[in-house]
């Protein structure tokens, strides 16, 4: 039994650069982005995520209609839209929780009609959920390394006996978790049961669990909902860091336009299951259709920001 996933597209442990998160600073993200664009100019790189005419309906209600979308490696794409626009459904399709009616999902080289949910982690995809989806019965320190569960390949007997390899992997996972917990300021509550933490902290734990695997593609469904303004700023720096330090492509669903405009490289706007705009924050801000559908009307969540 190998200890490391070696499937196509899976992370190899030895490929992972030394763990170093860039310190949260005021450095302009565009600089990092420019470096990446230069590279991709030399060798054409497949987008980290590609969606081709995705459609999904629940009974008579069309949740998504003919959505085309691409997220380049190292790119932060924000998906915005009013409630019920289909944003979460989009992520659920990408993670295989909803089965699409038509269309195709591509991760790098691999394309799927039906995304195999249980292989996602192996493909380098991690996500958070709009509603808390933590393991309430595990402590923070046990929850976070669950993001690396797919790397543990030791059988249960080996786990009981505690084989050398198994212990090494366990130690590595623990160290990775420890680091993320430190960055996300969760150290103080690391031994608490996650179910007993306040909402904002639980959100943080979920983000930590998604980050710990250093995914190639990170799907975040409203990760900042219900946290304070200062925390929001801090957390969005961590999201940016994920891109900067290990080049994750990120799909971010967020209602807070301020955060969206500051953080994302590109913004896609959904309305009634259709993509009505897709471009840089500035382009989208100026788009008439978007203003009509969304920006013109103050969203209940972001009154304070607009």
């Amino acid at each position, binding site marked *: 039994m190998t200890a490391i996933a070696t499937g196509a597209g899976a992370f190899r442990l030895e490929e992972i650069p030394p763990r170093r998160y860039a310190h949260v600073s005021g450095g302009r993200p565009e600089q990092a982005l420019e470096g990446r664009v230069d590279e991709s100019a030399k060798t054409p790189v497949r987008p980290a995520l590609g969606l081709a005419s995705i459609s999904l309906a629940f009974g008579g209600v069309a949740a998504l209609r003919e959505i085309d979308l691409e997220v380049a490696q190292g790119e932060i794409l924000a998906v915005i839209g009013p409630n019920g626009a289909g944003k979460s459904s989009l992520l659920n399709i990408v*993670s295989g*929780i909803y089965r699409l009616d038509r269309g195709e999902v591509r991760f790098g080289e691999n394309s799927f009609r039906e995304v195999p*949910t*249980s*292989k*996602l*982690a*192996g493909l380098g995809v*991690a*996500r958070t*959920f709009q509603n808390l*989806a*933590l*393991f*309430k*019965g*595990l*402590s923070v*320190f*046990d929850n976070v*390394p*669950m*993001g690396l*569960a*797919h*790397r*543990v390949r*030791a059988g*249960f007997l080996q*786990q*009981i006996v*505690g084989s050398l390899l198994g212990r090494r992997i*366990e130690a590595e996972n623990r160290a990775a978790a420890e680091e993320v917990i430190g960055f996300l300021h969760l150290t*103080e*509550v690391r*031994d*608490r*049961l996650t*179910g007993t*933490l*306040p909402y904002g*902290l639980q959100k943080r734990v979920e983000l930590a*669990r998604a980050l710990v*695997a250093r995914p190639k593609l990170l799907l975040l469904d409203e990760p900042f909902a219900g946290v304070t303004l200062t925390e929001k700023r801090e957390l969005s720096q961590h999201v940016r860091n994920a891109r900067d330090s290990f080049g994750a492509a990120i799909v971010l669903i967020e209602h807070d336009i301020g955060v969206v405009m500051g953080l994302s490289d590109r913004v896609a706007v959904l309305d009634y299951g259709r993509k009505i705009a897709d471009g840089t924050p500035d382009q989208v801000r100026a788009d008439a259709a978007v203003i009509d559908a969304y920006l013109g009307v103050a969203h209940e969540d972001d009154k304070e920001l607009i």
Partner: protein
Amino acid sequence: MPALSSAKSAWFSSEALWIGLVIVAAYGIVPLAGTDYLLDAVLTPFLALSLAAVGLNVLTGYAGQVSLGSAAFLAVGAYAAYNLHLRIPALPLLVDLVLAGGVAAAIGIVFGLPSLRLRGFYLAVSTLAAQFFVQWALTKFSWFSNDNPSGVIDAPILSIGSISFTSPAERYVFSLTIVVVLTLLTLRLLRSQSGRNFIAVRDHEITAKVIGVPHLRTKLLAFAISSFLIGIAGVLWAIAYLRTVEPAGFNLDRSFQILFIIVIGGLASLRGSFIGAAFIVVFPLLLSRIGAALLGSVFDSGVLEMSQRIVIGGLIIAFLIAEPRGLIALWDRAWDAMRPVRRPVYPT
């Protein structure tokens, strides 16, 4: 639900100390309080039921898969050990014991397959199938009881190598050793990745799937481990305790009894399994003594049986509503109340 304390916390040493103390006390009971009644009628059945409860707790408490078929796996273990002993006499009893657990685990996996599709109430109903099927098969095919006329079979002599365990004290020590070893191994497993996977599947199956927990394998593993433990508990029940095996003793009532143990003792708590088992074993005995002492002849066996059912039923409802974490939560709270708070509380 209680956490699996992480191995590295300062807790560990004090926990290890506690486990050590309990084990020493358990072995110490034999010379101290070793009346046959206490050993054979109270402690040995307590140990067997505790192990069964630990098994069910792995499945229901930790992995979140409800089962009403525990008694079936007790029966499989007991009959498997009996037949292995009978048909392959060369095998030492200890090997029979482990193999019997293996047979129970295999059957457990088969009856765990519906869990890949079903959950909650529907899964509970499908585990009932195990209960009825096993009991039916054991009565239907007299091969299982070696064509014994009355279907009741007598247990082989308990022995390891040349040491045989025949007196109540010896059978207690045998059971205690098996239960201690298996419980410690279970504890280790629960603190490994597999144990965290159990809880992940229980708490949020979709997320578990998304982050790459092999959730189907995890569920089947839970069924296998659980049935293994319950199967061995069945061997202890039949061979170390009753000294006989009969299918009627492994009916649905027994499955419920084990379920009640973990509900009353505490879901997802190994200590809870033991406390719950102690309660279920000792409570009726106490009730009958106290009832007889206080009420005299009014408290005959009919009244006893009725009051026992009423109290246990009431307790289960009370626990489900007021303290779903069972007796062990009450215990911990009482314990915490006696010492200063030392757990860090996040400032909110």
